[in-house]
């Protein structure tokens, strides 16, 4: 039975191809993620200073200090990122729907336009919002020209009242930061939504309406549940980086809008308190992982409806 023997040897040989394919990515992860994370963890438990060096003393107190001092910034970051994510979803869903199903031969052009902002630097894009929202900026002068300054003032007082503004200007406020975050992360929301919505079988809405569902009900009971994978993907891609973002707050916010990313940045690069900065980074990571996991689990059981 030479055939059988040959087959057996072939089958026995370990199939190393999948591992070979995995190797570069794995190596990359180990070098640029696992090792830094471990070093960060160790750093957060060390004591000492930059000049005399650090030693690992398992000083857990750093975590307690970090949390008790900076919990407001952490909470604020989560809130801004959450609001920005909600706004990107509200803006992005109809946009993705339009591009996917209504744009006809303009589809590719529109998709390019969605990612067009990536061709300029993050910094420049954010700075542009200064010129839009500033006191003599585009928005103010436009409203001025239209004799709508009263509306602007009304809006500013409204923002002040709900705690998202100073009451007298748009720029350097939570509102401006959230605008910047929303704008900067919109493509991260639109692209996964688009990929999902484009594949939706619109005949299902006809089936739903044939089964007595009004357009709103058809959306709620059929389209939205089927969009959830895209929604989850988009919200994660938006929420996670937005929480750790600090550029928007630096350029568009004020001392009252400090986000956790700014604190970490300052501790690492200016205060040079490495253990504290490392501890804050770790806390942020854990908080995000916990939030994301509970979110994904709920989305999976369709409780988000």
């Amino acid at each position, binding site marked *: 039975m030479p055939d059988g023997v040959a087959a057996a040897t072939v089958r026995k040989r370990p199939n190393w191809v999948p591992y070979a394919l995995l190797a570069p990515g794995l190596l990359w992860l180990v070098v640029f993620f696992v090792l830094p994370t471990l070093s960060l963890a160790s750093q957060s438990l060390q004591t000492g200073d930059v000049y005399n060096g650090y030693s690992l003393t398992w000083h857990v107190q750093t975590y307690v200090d970090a949390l008790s001092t900076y919990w407001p910034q952490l909470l604020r970051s989560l809130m801004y990122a959450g609001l920005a994510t909600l706004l990107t979803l509200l803006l992005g869903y109809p946009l993705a729907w339009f591009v996917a199903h209504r744009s006809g031969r303009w589809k590719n052009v529109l998709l390019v336009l969605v990612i067009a902002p990536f061709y300029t630097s993050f910094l420049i894009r954010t700075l542009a919002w200064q010129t839009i929202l500033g006191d003599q900026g585009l928005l103010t002068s436009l409203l001025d020209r239209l004799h709508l300054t009263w509306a602007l003032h009304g809006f500013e007082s409204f923002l002040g009242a709900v705690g998202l503004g100073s009451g007298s200007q748009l720029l350097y406020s939570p509102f401006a930061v959230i605008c910047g975050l929303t704008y900067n992360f919109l493509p991260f929301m639109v692209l996964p939504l688009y990929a999902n919505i484009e594949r939706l079988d619109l005949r299902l809405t*006809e089936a739903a309406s044939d089964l007595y569902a009004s357009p709103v009900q058809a959306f709620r009971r059929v389209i939205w549940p089927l969009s959830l994978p895209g929604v989850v993907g988009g919200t994660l891609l938006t929420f996670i980086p937005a929480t750790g973002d600090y550029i928007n707050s630096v350029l568009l916010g004020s001392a009252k809008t400090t986000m956790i990313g700014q604190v970490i940045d300052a501790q690492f690069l200016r205060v040079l308190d490495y253990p504290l900065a490392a501890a804050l980074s770790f806390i942020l990571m854990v908080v995000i992982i916990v939030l994301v996991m509970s979110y994904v689990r709920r989305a999976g059981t369709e409780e988000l409806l």
Partner: protein
Amino acid sequence: MADHATGDLRLSRITKRFDRFVAVDDVSLTVPEGSFFALLGPSGCGKTTTLRMIAGLDRPSAGSIDIGGTDITDLKPYQRHVNTVFQSYALFPHLDILDNVAFGLRQRGDKDWKAKSQEALALVQLPDVARKRPTQLSGGMQQRVALARALVNRPAVLLLDEPLGALDLKLRRQMQIELKRIQSDVGLTFVHVTHDQEEAMTMADTIAVMNAGKVEQRGDPATLYEHPASTFVANFLGQSNLLEARITGSASGGRMPAQTHGHDVVVAADRVPDGINDVWIGVRPEKLRLGDSGTNQLKGVVTDASFTGVSTQYLVRMPWGFEVMVVQQNDGSARATVEETVTVSWDPGQEFILDQRQDETAGAEIDDA
């Protein structure tokens, strides 16, 4: 909501245009309440479009639709007590089978949705799949779920758009019988779209044959088969031998003399359309017999004989070149072999007569589309 409108479904002069293209052209139809009605026609003749207008998914460009006298032309799909079994099934992939079936009932706030849905699943003989997802079922099972999902609402009219199209022949025959049984059990009005003439004939009480956006003829299967009103219907429903002929005299004793390619024949007078002399004499293959037992006799040469079990199908070439098809039961009656010269015959009244100005090939090539 015209929720409880029941009664006959009536389409009055319905037209549907897509830009310039007329997909459905001035169609009027009445579907009696509780009947099994088939819309039969070749691909692209406007069957789906007609169905979509009844469901409310497309708006007619002209004309009106009513059920039992209640005009539903302007009602949205979700306001009509009409349900559809889509050709693509269109089951909701994120819901399990029970939730799919219960969708319409819950939409209408029926408290009894669970029991009714389970009953509907039992009716289509799928009692055990309630908690599965559509993708876990075979095509035939999905088709039955789609049927249950529509049936469970007990609509005034149930629309079926080629629901058996994706099934293999055996399952298809089985489902045809099942559909027919379900229809007579629950007594709903079914409008069944198909391009399979055999399916339409075995299932329907009434068939409307559509061609290029128009209804060519409407009637019960036997009438359509025995008395087709056009060459299209004659060719689309089964096989026909169309003989070019002239009426040569007037009626006497219910018979009329005619001549086809120089051969004298007689036909039943009541089958001849008024005032027309140039005609097609249509004779179905199974009405033609080998041998001279019939009154009308033609001689020809057998060019092909194919044995199909219960019957044998012969092609017999007439002196003028035309080949007629003869289907002879294998019941001990005359047999013939290829190259043999035979007489084929039929009796007056077994034929149908059509105006010769009609295209003899209409509806023929697309028979098995």
